[in-house]
């Protein structure tokens, strides 16, 4: 029964993807992308990936749509050009699709317990999570502790991308991130629309609270810094949409956001260095407390906090950079 539901969702995914590519209005395409992400999140959930589903729903359906709309507002809503070399592209794409589908016949079937992917480190992580780290969520354990290096790298990629966006969008016009505060007229946002304003105002504190819950409950249930960062950022973005950029920047000035971007990544790195100073390896949390398992708990909470802070900071900086660009 579940697999039939999965096939139904997959069919919807393909239809949505086709509609996105065919649509000539970029606005419609972006909104469809949000639906596409939500369907993808439902699929991830069916495939037992609760953490990934949460991330995809918060980022793909929420923040990504807002960023694309922000870029559209600066560029234009309609495609003007017609596809070049359409037949050639269609030919290449169809042949490759058939080749990849042909290749899938060699793949193990969905859910096959003897598949190679289920034989190596996967079972080891599940077994050792209870023994070495003793938190229920194996995804958080692998993310924070077993593969802490990977996650540190990812956080720095997010950090670098955020710096890159600020750098690109502050070029030439002499605009500096600190100046955003000054350039806005007070008449902004949806303040004059009663329904979005009332409903939005009621939702914002709960979204924020849910973000904090996801952040600090990530050891026990689906959640963690990446998801929480996106959820907290989306609550501030909703505030900015309703009340205007100016109010949002008064609440969380650009200077603070820049400190968040760097501070989260630094906190993560500092936890690693603290492990070294206490006589362990880089990112070895066992030495952070007298009991290795308590040390692991402290380490994971701290690095997840670092991840959450950086992700919130980067997403909000990027949002404000796009929003401010139109006003300069």
């Amino acid at each position: 029964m579940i697999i039939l539901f999965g096939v139904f969702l997959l069919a919807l995914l393909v239809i949505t993807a086709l509609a996105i590519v065919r649509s000539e209005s970029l606005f419609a395409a972006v909104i469809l992308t949000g639906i596409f992400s939500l369907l993808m999140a439902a699929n991830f959930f069916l495939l037992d990936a609760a953490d990934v589903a949460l991330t995809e729903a918060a980022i793909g359906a929420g923040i990504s749509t807002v960023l694309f709309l922000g870029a559209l507002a600066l560029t234009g809503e309609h495609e003007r050009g017609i596809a070049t070399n359409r037949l050639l592209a269609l030919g290449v794409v169809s042949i490759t699709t058939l080749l990849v589908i042909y290749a899938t016949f060699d793949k193990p079937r969905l859910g096959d317990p003897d598949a190679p992917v289920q034989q190596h480190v996967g079972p080891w992580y599940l077994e050792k999570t209870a023994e070495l780290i003793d938190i229920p969520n194996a995804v958080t354990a692998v993310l924070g502790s077993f593969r802490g290096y990977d996650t540190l790298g990812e956080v720095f990629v997010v950090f670098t991308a955020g710096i890159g966006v600020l750098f690109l969008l502050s070029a030439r016009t002499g605009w500096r991130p600190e100046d955003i505060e000054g350039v806005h007229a007070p008449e902004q946002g949806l303040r004059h629309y009663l329904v979005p304003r009332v409903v939005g105002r009621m939702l914002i504190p709960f979204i924020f609270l849910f973000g904090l819950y996801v952040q600090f409950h990530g050891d026990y249930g689906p959640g963690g810094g990446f998801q929480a960062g996106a959820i907290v950022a989306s609550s501030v973005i909703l505030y900015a949409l309703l009340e205007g950029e100016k109010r949002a920047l008064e609440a969380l000035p650009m200077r603070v956001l820049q400190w968040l971007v760097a501070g989260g990544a630094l906190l993560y790195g500092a936890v690693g260095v603290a492990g070294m100073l206490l006589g362990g390896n880089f990112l070895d949390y066992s030495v952070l407390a007298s009991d290795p398992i308590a040390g692991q708990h402290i380490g994971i909470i701290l690095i997840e906090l670092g991840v959450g802070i950086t992700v919130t900071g980067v997403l909000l900086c990027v949002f404000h950079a796009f929003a401010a660009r139109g006003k300069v």
Partner: protein
Amino acid sequence: MELLGLVYYWVFAILLMIGFYAVIAKPNLIKKLIGLSIFQAAVFLLYITMGKIDGGTAPILQDGVTLYSNPLPQVLILTAIVVGISTTALGLGIVVRINEEYGSIEEHEIQERDRQ
């Protein structure tokens, strides 16, 4: 039933190529970026599909459950989603700058301006 287990992989192939088509055939730069994110989502689907195990449940340990899906692909994809949005934002930043310098985000118009 045997073939039903492969449907996820077929959809992966189809979504991958729908995204790729948008990247190579559509002249609009934002459309290309949307195509790239569909391409990316297809890869996410492939990874998560591989981690699923029959009769398993989400890898959150609890009493009385012995079979869990593989947590490793989930970890990789979870971080990849966040990195994906950051790089997409960087791409959008570049598109906005191109629009300011060239007055267009259509590939052929930009190339025309370059030839002048």
